[in-house]
């Protein structure tokens, strides 16, 4: 029994609207922490910027990758649970209220509404009723008649279903989160660099060292950057060909903001760069002054002509320590242990020396590559559906409120005329409803004569 009490206690807590507000504020506060603390820092970055104690604190609570920590996800899970439990608790009540239609109108109760008004008409009941019905259906909407033996009564309603829109919004939040979950379990995100003229099928997965082989190859036929006259880039474009089982299945240009989808996998133009193809190198022997020239392909040993020595380019950077393009050249003297150094490509720098050679790069040929973001996300349709539902839900909550108008009229006992009573209520947007109600009262007053009482605010 105690166990049941415990679970009931938790259920009760989850059903409380206070928890909703608290969760919103806690999620907001923790998200703030995640924007103030740089995200995705590695071990080395942490060591450089923080003290040991701070690092312990950061890594224990996962502050450097806050949005992916278990406790942040737990908060989201709590929000979902709160949302589901609140819906289970309230939706039946809302539906019950929606299904209930009142059977009669009590003029005593009408006078107690915040918005109510009473008139007397000099006309007999039949004629008053006819005019009343036509005015109300013109100004407000169709009247559902609940007439009694001796009186006219009716209810007119607008936006009866609008209280349900809140549940649509709640469902939409669940849809978005479910879509995100499905995407993160069954989809992947990664990156591939494709050299101009080459075909690649391996994607490097994000956040891991693993690769993934696509069932087809991506060939980059050409990569091109165009510029505005002020030097800003105008467009990045890759001409791609997809090859499956040796056959070209799709040829398409890929631009930023214009992705390409094939077989459920989408490619995005994300970055670009270049690697070194080969370099024409000139070596000057600092002893003898002999000059040797040769062409060195990237990462291949070549013989230095006229000697027993060999050379290889093993690394290339487009901007080495802000000094411009540079490469690492290794030279092995007579088959011995190779020695190497960074060599600046565009500058004839005095530090460009290896062993007893002065090195000068006469020409470097680059090969451009295009950087593609690759992803598969089977949950995205749920996310889009959730977004659409959210907008419909919030939009209709704003634009439509549940407005209700009661009317009652009966012959004034002992006099010629007819007594009229109307009252109104809305679940939201009271000011606009007040204006609507007042307009209706003014028109009735003009039609039937003096108002005898009421509260119109």
């Amino acid at each position: 029994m105690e166990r049941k009490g415990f679970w009931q206690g938790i259920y009760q807590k989850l059903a409380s609207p206070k928890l909703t507000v608290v969760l919103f504020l806690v999620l907001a506060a923790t998200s703030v922490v995640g924007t103030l603390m740089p995200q995705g820092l590695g071990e080395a970055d942490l060591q450089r910027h923080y003290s040991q104690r701070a690092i312990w604190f950061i890594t224990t609570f996962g502050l450097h990758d806050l949005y992916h920590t278990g406790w942040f996800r737990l908060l989201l899970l709590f929000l979902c649970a709160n949302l589901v439990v609140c819906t289970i608790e309230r939706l039946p009540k809302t539906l019950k209220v929606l299904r209930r239609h009142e059977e009669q109108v009590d003029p005593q109760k009408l006078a107690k509404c915040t918005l109510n008004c009473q008139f007397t008409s000099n006309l007999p009941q039949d004629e008053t009723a006819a005019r009343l019905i036509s005015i109300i259906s013109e100004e407000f909407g169709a009247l559902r008649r609940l007439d009694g033996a001796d009186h006219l009564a009716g209810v007119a309603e607008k936006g009866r279903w609008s209280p349900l829109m809140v549940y649509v919004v709640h469902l939409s939040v669940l849809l978005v989160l479910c879509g995100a979950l499905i995407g993160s379990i069954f989809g992947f995100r990664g990156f591939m660099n494709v050299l101009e003229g080459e075909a690649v099928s391996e994607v490097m997965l994000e956040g891991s060292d693993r690769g993934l082989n696509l069932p087809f190859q991506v060939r980059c036929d050409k990569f091109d950057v165009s510029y505005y006259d002020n030097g800003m880039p105008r467009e990045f474009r890759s001409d791609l060909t997809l090859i499956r089982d040796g056959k070209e299945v799709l040829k398409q240009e890929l631009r930023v903001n214009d992705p390409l989808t094939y077989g459920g996998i989408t490619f995005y133009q994300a970055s670009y760069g270049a690697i070194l193809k080969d370099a024409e190198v000139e070596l000057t022997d600092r002893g003898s002054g002999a000059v040797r020239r040769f062409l060195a392909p990237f990462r291949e040993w070549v013989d230095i002509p006229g000697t027993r020595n060999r050379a290889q380019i093993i690394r290339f950077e487009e901007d080495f320590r802000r000094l411009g393009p540079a490469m690492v050249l290794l030279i092995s003297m007579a088959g011995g242990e190779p020695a190497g150094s960074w060599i600046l490509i565009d500058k004839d720098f005095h530090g460009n020396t290896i062993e007893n050679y002065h090195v000068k790069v006469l020409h470097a040929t680059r090969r451009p590559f295009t950087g593609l973001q690759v992803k598969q996300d089977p949950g995205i349709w749920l996310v889009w559906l959730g977004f659409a539902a959210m907008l419909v839900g919030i939009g209709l909550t704003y634009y439509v409120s549940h407005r209700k108008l009661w009317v009652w009229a009966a012959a004034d006992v002992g006099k010629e005329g007819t007594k009229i009573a109307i009252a109104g209520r809305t679940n939201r947007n009271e000011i606009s409803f007040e204006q609507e109600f007042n307009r209706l009262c003014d028109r009735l007053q003009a039609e039937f004569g003096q108002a005898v009482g009421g509260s119109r605010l």
Partner: protein
Amino acid sequence: MITSSILLGITTFAYLLCALLYLSGVIFRRHTIMLWGTVTGAAALAVQMAGIILRWWESYQIGYGHAPLSNLYESLVFAAWAIMLIYLIMEHRTKQRALGVFPALFAFLAMAYASFSTGVNSKIQPLLPALKSNWLIAHVVTCFIGYAAFAVSFGISILYVTRESRRDISGSAHPLLPDLRQLDEINYQMVLFGFLWLSLGIITGSVWADLAWGTYWSWDPKETWSLITWLIYAALLHARTMKGWRGNRVAWLSIIGFGCVLFTYFGVNFLLGGLHSYANTK
């Protein structure tokens, strides 16, 4: 030759005049002066609209050809326009003229900051490839309508909080200002309206990010701060409908929410950085 910068310059001072007219109307309790405030505000809105369209046309003349919504300057101009537009529609619907002081002041401040700050480049610049998309217009317009609604709500909240605290002292109500219940009600409608457009703004941004970068949510600081703003206003709406909060507490939440809007707009750019274009205008 009329240029967009001349029209936008006129707008700046027209908003100042408009704010002063509304303020004098409230201080001297003269409805006619406030009516002139409305007239000035509407005229300034029209001139500004012309200025924005002209700037759009000018960008085509230069050969860049994009909607004037691409950098900090253009977004500030649009923000001022949206604040005034939303306020004037609200004024027309609620028949409450005296609430115009704050919106007109905010519109003036946004225009003045855009025009006179050295940190804001007012030149028409070409679009980076990442921004070349029709989603740019949808995203910026929806976000700024949301921000503008929150700015108007912020003004109402300030008024609410000050009137609430002075109520016990003065006792008598100002004849031209709405009473506290009306202020609270107008404020709620404005927050709900802003919430709808902020949601639209976040969603269009999300769909666009998926198209440009292949991810609809990446916890970029700007994204995260827009979510924080959304959460604060969501808390406000739930506190009001579910817990029955009214008046002061709602007004204070709205003030905090607008603080988040300002941080999302400026703070993230200047302090945190990220993917958004005007993050590095300097």
